[in-house]
């Protein structure tokens, strides 16, 4: 994929191959400075129309949640592994979400999402919904440079390497292949549907995807000498019914830490030219190697 020149900041016209009809710029994209993020509280508390909602979300949560945002906390947006069959309340604006503990009470998630086991007996009662993973990271580089780096196919392949084999399938089309359990894999093509060079990029899976999904990445200036805040969001929307259940099982391969790990890998790659790894690593197991 070619490195996109920077001159035009106007949204590019959608590709002819796109599956969905063209839309206006997504609400996530705004040419704002990160410093205005503190004003987000009223946007963050409104449930996004049409999204599945958690049963019994109390208004107090929303306040807690907003104060966590204002407190500058990094929010974990993952839903538990089984929450593909679980419920989520998506909050508008930055796409902030919190996870439902169906009946257990709610709270802002300020750490990595927990694993399946702590969902306990409540899990089966909740309604199917999309799984959203969103995280931010701060990187010591200007936004324009980061945007260009993100657009390089070879970088995307490296950055997503912990999760999927991403290969180029045409201009601005990537093929994603996620290894699931029992040798089965999930595959889809995704294409760019919105771009604002230096600031925002959004993609969607094409028709025929095993799991319909979309995502975006946003670059905004950080305060002081911190560089740029990069926010990455994935949304996986498995189909319903019997097929949906099978996909949900397969999607167990999507780690809760997908967004944070991808961002971390991207940061290391652009700041240092490599992604830290201990593969392979000498050890007295695994035939002398381990990691």
């Amino acid at each position, binding site marked *: 994929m070619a490195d996109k020149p920077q001159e035009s900041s106007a949204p590019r016209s959608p590709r002819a191959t796109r599956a969905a009809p063209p839309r206006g710029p997504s609400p996530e994209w705004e040419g704002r400075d990160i410093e205005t993020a503190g004003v987000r509280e009223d946007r963050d508390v409104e449930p996004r129309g049409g999204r599945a909602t958690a049963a019994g979300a109390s208004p107090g949560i929303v306040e807690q949640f907003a104060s966590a945002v204002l407190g500058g906390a990094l929010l974990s947006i993952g839903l538990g592994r089984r929450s593909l069959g679980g419920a989520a309340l998506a909050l508008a604006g930055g796409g902030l979400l919190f996870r439902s503990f169906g009946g257990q009470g709610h709270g802002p998630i300020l750490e990595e999402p927990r694993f399946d086991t702590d969902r306990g007996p409540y899990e089966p009662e909740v309604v199917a919904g999309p799984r959203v993973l969103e995280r931010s990271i701060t990187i010591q580089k200007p936004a324009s440079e980061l945007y260009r780096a993100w657009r390089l196919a070879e970088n995307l392949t490296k950055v997503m390497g912990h999760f999927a084999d991403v290969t180029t399938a045409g201009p601005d089309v990537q093929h994603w292949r996620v290894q699931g359990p029992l040798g089965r894999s999930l595959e889809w093509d995704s294409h760019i549907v919105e771009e604002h060079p230096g600031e925002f990029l959004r993609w969607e899976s094409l028709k025929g995807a095993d799991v319909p999904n979309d995502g975006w990445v946003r670059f905004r200036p950080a305060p002081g000498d911190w560089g740029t805040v990069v926010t990455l969001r994935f949304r996986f929307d498995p189909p319903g019914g019997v097929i949906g259940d099978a996909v949900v099982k397969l999607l167990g391969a999507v780690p809760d830490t997908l967004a944070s790990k991808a961002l971390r890998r991207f940061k290391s790659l652009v700041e240092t030219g490599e992604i*830290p790894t*201990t593969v392979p690593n000498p050890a007295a197991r695994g035939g002398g190697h381990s990691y």
Partner: protein
Amino acid sequence: MRALCWNGINDLRVETVADPGIVNPHDVILRVTMSTTCGSDLHFIDGYIPTMREGDVIGHEFMGEVVDVGRDVKKVKKGDRVVVPSFICCGNCWYCQHDLYSLCDNTNPKAELQEPLLGYPTAGIYGYTHAFGGYAGAHAQYVRVPHADTDCFLVPEGLKDEQVIFLSDAVPTGYMGADFCNIHPGDTVAVWGCGGVGLMAMKSAFLLGAGRVIGIDRFPERLRMAREKVGAETIDYSRVDSVLDMLKELTGGRGPDACIDAVGMEAHGTGAEYAYDRAKQALHLHSDRGEALRQAIRACRKGGTLSILGVYGVMDKFPIGVIMNKGLTVRTAQQHGQKYLPLLLEHVAKGQLDPSFLATHRFSLEDAPRGYEMFKKKQDGCVRAVFLPN
């Protein structure tokens, strides 16, 4: 190659493992000429720090000769004789750029293991648990060193390995601890723990202008080193009724201007609090025995500085109210070695600093388990055991 591997609590063995190779473009491979024990290793050998895995190669304080060089390494060359700080640092992130090297953002491939506890991951360390990256350690014939241009420091000609090896960890840690104390000429600095780290903190306090340095421990040979090699006054805490009273009397009733904790989570003690800590730690109800740290907090003069070098977990019974009411400044970190090494190498080259006296015992790599045993039990006056892996 041969390497010293952790196999469980108090179970170290020398085993044959695969040789390391260049993995990332900024890596080099060192042939390890000398490596040494550190008090930090004892914490996981004794089982107080989690995320070790059976078969892990341990060791984080080392030096050696460069034998292989990654494609993007610019300064370091094959054949260079280098010393390497124990933390792996990228040199490019905000933290490295601000001299806060052990907080590097880009060298912990297992960040997700640290995040739940710390909130944010730190730099990786060689041979020091998977939460700190799971990198193979340096008690081995060879070790892979990532980000070589930031992390390898050329050893000036004419210096012996023993003079340089401790610049990997004990010396920069001690120096940083003294640097934290914001020493004014003539200040009195008290240091708990006369191990390698504490002794180097005492020496550094003098280098930074302290008028008096007081070392506290109970092992006669370590206290003697503090007096004879560093020029400190000493207190044997097992032979006095109250360390606090002693320090008060030695400082005209004011207390030391700065107190450095170079003991850590396995502090030994004599009083009721020690018994409480010991019981809880044995039951794994909490991970720390904080006797020395609590003593340092009480002894420090009002408005003084508390510099914490000892490694701790998540301690309970921590007297934050004492710190608050006395207006103490608390400084602490894992060592930012890359910040201090150029200066420290210069001190050694000019003869202002010679840490070689710490190397009380030498072993081949094959005898490393015995070396750790002696170091841990402080047998035969062992302060640091050094290993010769090749």
